[in-house]
């Protein structure tokens, strides 16, 4: 029963969705501060190459994850500085970050006399429980059979939700994203709040990136993440800026990414659909979801932070 196509598809969807959860929750936190970071793709790649390299050097997965978090946070400081301190267009700065990050990760993967490309990971994330309850029908593979980061992703989504809606810092964060002038007058340090949360979002994106070469495909290849960073930006809207919903949105897209392999195992006529068509499914789904959600009157109830993307200058008149 645990070998049925349905179960296998869901398990795979959870795996493919996990890095998307990290990146999406990260971007939600960033956007809740009013900063649009289109550099997620680049940040994820930098996190991926740093995390893979750290584990490759030390053999430690923990150090790999720490390295990816730090790299993501450090890399996104570029965007924070450009958009908060210099107040340049967040779209331009974010795109620049993605272009830079993509090139940097690719370069780091090929640099040196002994490049990372093609190297297998020295260690990888495996299911934390094997046998026992992990073999129970249905709930075994769906709930207990995952690696640690799957559970960390659940915790991250729950913690982010709690932080946003139940703590004073979360209140400050939401206020800064809605109306920085009002927040500042109420005694909130707008620039500080924005910096911290752009970096937190970057750290989570870096972690999401590292999941690919350390768990999903444990080797270094050029661009191991596909277009996950871009999908994450769409998922923020699909999740209407709420971390809990990001969990489900990410798994939905994980399933969409997996469906092409499932269909090929089902035989004719499914397997005759060209793989390139099937590979488009997540992106088509993203477009449909965005249109359905953001068109007409529904857009108003989505909950996009009102000051998203707008530079804040206190002495503006």
């Amino acid at each position, binding site marked *: 029963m645990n070998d049925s196509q349905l179960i296998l598809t869901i398990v795979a969807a959870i795996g493919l969705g996990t890095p998307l959860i990290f990146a999406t929750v990260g971007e939600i936190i960033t956007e809740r501060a009013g900063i649009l970071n289109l550099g997620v793709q680049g940040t994820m790649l930098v996190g991926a190459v740093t995390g893979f390299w750290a584990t490759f050097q030390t053999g430690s997965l923990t150090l790999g994850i720490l390295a990816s978090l730090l790299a993501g946070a450090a890399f996104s400081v570029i965007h924070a500085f450009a958009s908060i301190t210099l107040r340049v267009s967040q779209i331009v700065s974010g795109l620049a970050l993605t272009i830079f990050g993509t090139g940097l990760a690719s370069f780091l993967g090929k640099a040196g006399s002994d490049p990372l490309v093609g190297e297998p990971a020295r260690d990888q994330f495996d299911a934390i429980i094997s046998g026992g309850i992990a073999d129970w029908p249905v709930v075994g593979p769906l709930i207990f059979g995952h690696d640690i980061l799957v559970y960390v992703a659940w915790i991250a989504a729950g913690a982010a939700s709690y932080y946003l809606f139940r703590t*004073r810092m979360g209140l*400050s964060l939401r206020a800064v994203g809605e*109306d920085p002038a009002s927040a*500042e007058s*109420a005694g909130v340090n707008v620039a500080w709040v924005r910096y911290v949360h752009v970096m937190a979002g970057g750290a989570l994106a870096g972690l999401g990136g590292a999941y690919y070469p350390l768990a999903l495909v444990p080797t270094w290849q050029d661009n191991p993440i596909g277009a996950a960073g871009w999908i994450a930006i769409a998922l923020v809207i699909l999740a209407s800026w709420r971390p809990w919903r990001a969990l489900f949105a990410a798994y939905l897209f994980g399933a969409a990414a997996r469906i092409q392999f499932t269909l090929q195992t089902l035989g004719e006529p499914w397997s005759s659909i060209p793989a390139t068509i099937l590979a488009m499914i997540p992106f088509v789904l993203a477009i449909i979801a965005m249109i359905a959600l953001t068109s007409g009157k529904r857009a108003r109830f989505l909950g996009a932070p009102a000051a998203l993307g707008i530079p804040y200058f206190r002495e503006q008149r």
Partner: protein
Amino acid sequence: MSDSIARETLGVDLRDIHKQFYGVKANEGVNFQLRPGEVHALLGENGAGKSTLCSILAGLYRPDAGEMVIDGEPVVFKSPKDALAAGIGMVYQHFRLVPNLTVAENLALGHHNLGVLVDQKDLQSDAAELGERYGLPVDATARIWQLSVGEQQRVEILKLLYRDARVLILDEPTAVLTPQESQALFSTMRQLTDEGRSVIFVSHKLHEVKQVSDRVSVMRQGQMVGEIDTADAEPRDLARMMVGRDLELPTREEDESTGEPVLVVRDLRVPGDRGLESVKGVSFEVRAGEVVGVAGVSGNGQRELAYGLVGLRRPTAGSVSLDSVDVTEANVLEHIRQGLAYVPQNRLGMGLSPGLTTEDNLGLKAFREAPYSKGRQLVPAAFKTRGKDLIAQYDIRGVVPGLPIRLLSGGNLQKALLAREVEMQPKILIARSPTRGLDVGATEAVRNSILRERQRGTGILLMSEDLDELLALSDRLIVLYEGEIVGELTARMATAERLGLLMAGQKDGGN
């Protein structure tokens, strides 16, 4: 919430404050003293530098030069947070509340930031208790965008009291209130000073200053021109200090129009932004050579009424006739061709195109006709020559040929906008808050333009929140409340008090 009586009251001393914005001197060597426990009015024209001075005291702006001394200690505020910590808070003219958060959340925002949990219940009971104590009732669970302007102002004041501010700066608080709401605010202010707090009351309305303050400081063009005990201050002297000369704002000459109706509105219904009906069955007419004033607290359907009349929003029911032609379903261009001129509230953006030159903006409505056009071709030279003429004729100052119009001052923008509209020789002119934010000279020019049009036989619909302006210019007044006309008064019957009652929704405002 800490005990409000326990802390010492503050004396504030601002010395030689300077502040520039992009080369414009907003404050030039300003001195200002506030004594504990007083209501200190700060009087001055728009642009005199009052808001700048207050924003400096509230920590929002940092002065270019000068010293702030609080209770004998020099202080430097890096942000509003520092000012709040020192006991100084400000209610800005444009409220600083986060619209999507609740009243309680807005109160808590930025306060005791290190505490972890937000307990909505605690916050709500704190808010209710404070509100009751100061006569500022407000529903703590409501989101800000659901509140009326008056309620939002109460939240702003509660926000400061929640932090136990000793000095409350109120920047033009009565501009958004009905006369009755203003009176309630004044008694709250008295209660605050009785507790030993002090209030800086910014206004340009002499009678309010006279009524509520202990002392008055008057600013003009970025400088402090005088300070006086209110009891010794004659309104006429204050006015002269404020504008620097004796002042006679133009008013309408007494004569009733007997012209034909040029705008006839019957049972008009117009939807609001959220799809709900904002204008709920309004009927009135405007005759040639008559100024009809529309009074009302902002947000009671004025904007939607204007949109419905000029063709920017399709009415859901009712009819609009311009010069006996039904234009209910017509588009904007058809309205213009039928003789409608429109001065929107948002003069830069909706009225004028910020990036185009002054000359181009002046031709922006007539460009389809000669001399601007020849068949389907534009005649660029005509924009230059016509523009030059109009700029001279309407005394539009500060124009540099070839540069965008957005560089002009508010008064000159409005003169340009009116020049363009009036040059169309309209049959009906709809103007919304035409002198809002203008200095006295520009206000004079704009009012004169409107009265000249009236003399020429144009029907004028003047929508404004400035009661003095409405009373000075209107032959008749209608009052909008929640999208309905709750009263109609002739100029002779209208007083600020009666209008105020009607604006608050009491239909029998006369009693």
